[in-house]
């Protein structure tokens, strides 16, 4: 399995299309059990607004629990939603889900990242999932002294990608959330709210929830570890005793096809996915 395929599968496991009563609005991704994030402008900064997330056959009902910054009359007439432009969604109903492995450090300049959003690129009448790769090109200070955005380049950030997870392809970590394009119909890239800022905004719901999820379920970390190993050595993937490509594929298949990924461990064997008891993941 190529690293691009692994990145796509990880992104598909944690991201979802976001709808309101007014129709599709963009993308969101799960950051902790029962919590997802999206761009504040996707939900109008409207705390309490009901939203629906969907990915393939799964769907979740939730509401906007917090918005940074919250909506004001000044924002209504602003051309861009002010920084950081991120909203926390509380999931009220729906199946268990995988959570993105949120990074703790700023990625290095030049690293390759992948974004997965829900767009109308294929058809104006239809919203479909779309991935795009970028390079991290720098950062951008904002009027909020606590918020420095990441800049992406060499890829097209299109309508619908707001709220999409940005995954560093060499580490498997989600380094942030896409919020803005630097130029529509161009390869100028976009702006990203960094993962460490997302963690710091909601230390209990997001940072702690994310850490606990990945302590309990180590499979994403194992896939991430495999990606890091592959980036340093093309032969690492086949290291004896390590996580085999077959196991990675099985895991990715399991998270894509749904199921209680958050609380139920998966045994990997020749017959594919089987459920096992709760407890530590066996990799």
């Amino acid at each position: 399995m190529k690293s691009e395929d692994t990145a796509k599968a990880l992104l598909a496991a944690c991201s979802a299309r976001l709808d309101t009563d007014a129709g599709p609005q963009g993308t969101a991704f799960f950051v902790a059990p029962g919590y997802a994030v999206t761009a504040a402008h996707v939900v109008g900064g409207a705390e309490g607004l009901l939203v629906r997330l969907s990915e393939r056959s799964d769907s979740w009902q939730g509401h906007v629990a917090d918005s940074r910054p919250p909506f004001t009359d000044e924002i209504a007439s602003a051309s861009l939603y002010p920084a950081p432009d991120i909203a926390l969604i509380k999931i009220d109903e729906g199946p268990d889900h995988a959570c993105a492995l949120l990074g703790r450090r700023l990625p290095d300049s030049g690293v390759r990242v992948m974004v997965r959003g829900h767009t109308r690129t294929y058809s104006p009448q239809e919203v479909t999932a779309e991935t795009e790769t970028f390079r991290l090109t720098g950062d951008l200070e904002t009027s909020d002294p606590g918020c420095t955005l990441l800049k992406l380049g060499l890829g097209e950030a299109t309508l619908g990608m707001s709220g999409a997870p940005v995954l560093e392809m060499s580490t498997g970590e989600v380094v942030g959330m896409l919020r803005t394009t630097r130029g529509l119909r161009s390869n100028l890239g976009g702006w990203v709210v960094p993962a460490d800022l997302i963690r710091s905004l909601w230390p209990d719901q997001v940072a702690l929830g994310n850490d606990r999820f990945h302590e309990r379920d180590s499979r994403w970390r194992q896939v991430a570890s495999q990606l890091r190993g592959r980036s340093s050595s093309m032969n690492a993937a086949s290291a004896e005793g390590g996580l085999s490509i077959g196991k990675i594929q099985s895991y990715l298949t399991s998270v894509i096809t749904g199921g209680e990924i958050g609380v139920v461990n998966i045994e990997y064997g020749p017959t594919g996915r089987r459920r096992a008891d709760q407890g530590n993941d066996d990799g």
Partner: protein
Amino acid sequence: MSEIAQVMMPSGDLIWVRVRVAEPAAADEHAAGPADVGLGGRVAPAVQALRLPGFAETVRGVVSSVRQALDEHQPDSLAVEFGVEIAARAGGVLSVLAEVGGTAQIRVTASWGRPDVALASHRAEVSEPR
């Protein structure tokens, strides 16, 4: 370019409407520079519902004008068709006569049951002030 916004009608009812943005917007596909990339544009929250000034005046003005115009002909029935477009401007929304091909169109149909009245229908088009 259009946006979804919640608007309070003069009756007090809240409705979701797709409003035309009258000024360059962040997500205008033809605009250069940074733009937020949500699918539906800016969604105004329910608690900040925009009021809709001018809606009742627009409807009343059109209907009153047509009735006055045909008053001397005393039609037996009168139908007036026109569109009202809700346009977003900085800090609020406005209701304006809808444009069709560059003009705001009002279709008036008047009828008489009496055979001595020749005029069966009347149609008027007015240009929207720029």
